[in-house]
């Protein structure tokens, strides 16, 4: 009964996981019969000692960290706020709920397509036109995705637009789990809206919040599609991510070993973070 399912996940998840460690110590070429050549830890030392590659690698790590540091708190807060807003009745509220969730069914390719137009440079770009309007023509059109300082924030904004609805639904489920008697008791004590949130809603959503933070953190480390499609890691590596770097090494430059070494680093970071978060989760529940 278990054989097909377990067999498939072993073959296509566990085996590649261990294979990536072997691969990261060998020079191989896709589409050639040249036998693999062992190079030991060369691809790892390359990340830390090669002056040019080291810079790109650390820039990508930093970008992933910035992405996570902004997206995790911002998206969690937005999603929680949206969930509280739409946790009531009415046709209009229901429509809003659908609207906030809609981008979740949008593939990242489509999200990138739409936002490429919104962020287009020059006065024709929608965002530029909007900002020009609300500042009474004082705003100078920006090249959002081509500016070293604006590219990463732009990628962050479109990622939050696409992902917030997903977390909102998880928070909604969490809100349903808070017994209404808790609210009634607090209201009898004369709690105001803010106190209700601080003393009833937020503690009630604690486990949901931890779960959402975990999922969003791992999501932040996986960023690839929007970077590959919109900026190719540029300008000047301002949007490069670990995953983007790994694919551009392994796929674009047929340097599979280096790509595999980066995958191993990514796996290591994710497993470490999961261990830490699981520990936090366990302590909090007790």
């Amino acid at each position, binding site marked *: 009964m278990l054989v097909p399912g377990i067999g498939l996940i072993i073959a296509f998840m566990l085996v590649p996981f261990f294979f990536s460690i072997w691969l990261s110590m060998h020079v191989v070429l896709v589409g050639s019969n040249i036998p693999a050549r062992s190079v030991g830890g060369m691809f790892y030392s390359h990340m830390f000692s090669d002056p040019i590659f080291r810079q790109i690698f650390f820039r990508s790590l930093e970008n992933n960290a910035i992405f996570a540091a902004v997206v995790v708190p911002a998206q969690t807060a937005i999603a929680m706020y949206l969930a509280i807003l739409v946790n009531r009745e009415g046709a209009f509220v229901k429509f809003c709920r659908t609207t906030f969730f809609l981008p979740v069914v*949008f*593939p*990242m*390719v*489509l999200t990138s397509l739409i936002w490429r137009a919104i962020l287009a440079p020059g006065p024709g770009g*929608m965002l530029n036109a909007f900002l020009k309007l609300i500042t009474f023509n004082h705003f100078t059109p920006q090249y959002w995705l081509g500016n070293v300082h604006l590219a990463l924030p732009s990628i962050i904004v479109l990622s939050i637009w696409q992902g917030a609805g997903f977390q909102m639904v998880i928070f909604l489920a969490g809100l349903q789990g808070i017994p209404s008697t808790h609210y009634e008791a607090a209201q009898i004590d004369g709690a105001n809206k803010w106190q209700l949130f601080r003393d009833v809603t937020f503690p009630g959503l604690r486990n*949901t919040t931890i779960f959402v933070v975990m999922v969003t953190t791992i999501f932040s480390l996986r960023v690839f599609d929007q970077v590959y499609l919109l900026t190719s890691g540029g300008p000047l590596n301002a949007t490069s991510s670990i995953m983007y770097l790994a694919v551009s090494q392994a796929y674009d430059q047929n340097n*599979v070993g280096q790509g595999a070494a980066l995958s191993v680093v*990514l796996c290591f970071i994710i497993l470490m973070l999961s261990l830490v978060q699981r520990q936090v989760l366990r302590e909090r529940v007790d």
Partner: protein
Amino acid sequence: MAIAAPSKKRRRKIGKTSWGTYAILTVLMVLFLFPVYYLIVGSFEPVDQALNGFHAAVPSHLSFANYSTLNAAFFSNTITGSLKGFYTVSTLVSFIVVGGGLVVNSLAGYGLARLQFRGRRQLLLLVIVLVIIPFEAIAIPLYYMLSGLRNSLIVQALPFIGSAFSIYLFYTFFLALPPQLEEAAKIDGAGPWRTFVQIILPNAKPAFASVAILSFIQIWSSYLWPLLTTSQPNYYPLSVAIGNLVKQQASPNYGEMFAFGVLLVVPMAIFFIVFQRWFIRSVASLAVKG
């Protein structure tokens, strides 16, 4: 798993909906909906209108021109591939992954939840660890392992049929089913297979719906894997075909690009509108996974 749909009685617990709340909701709704609106309106606009500041958001000069261009491309079979081909690939791959996945993952989930055998705990631990590892982290070794299968349908589906995540969702669902259900069957001498088909399947529709929807969203949207494994346009799924348009550096024809994007999302959007309650429920069911 057993999270109820938003029940009417429990809603609206925090005071009345004030005008301020409605105002905030409206602003947020416009912010979230605008990109979607722009996509749809833009898909009916000619090339010089679709990227023309605010004029692009005002429906004028509308025509089906972009769609008829795409329609012409639908049946043509050029070196750049045909739209019909992209649709076929995306649909077949999704069908294999969702259909095959429901069968193998539900069986594995049931086996983990109910069968007694040596190594069950270790196997469960393996599944949980594999849930944590995202596909991206193993995409590159997998790309090398399966490079002999490049440019085929099967290579696009193969890594996603078995899913640790789906197995775990099924496992938690089956674990929560009352064992009394199966006891009667056991007394009648039914083995685990017959019990699964006759007793479990009819009671597990919500779990199957959740897993089907979540894996459909995932596979229909997937971009990295088909990008790595296809180089011939007749094996491109829709996402890669559109990705190539988005990625091209020269200024593209935004109107046509929007129309193409609409066609990508239409099957998903129809699904979403018809089964909206189930979509939201399946995402909500993730909350208990932690």
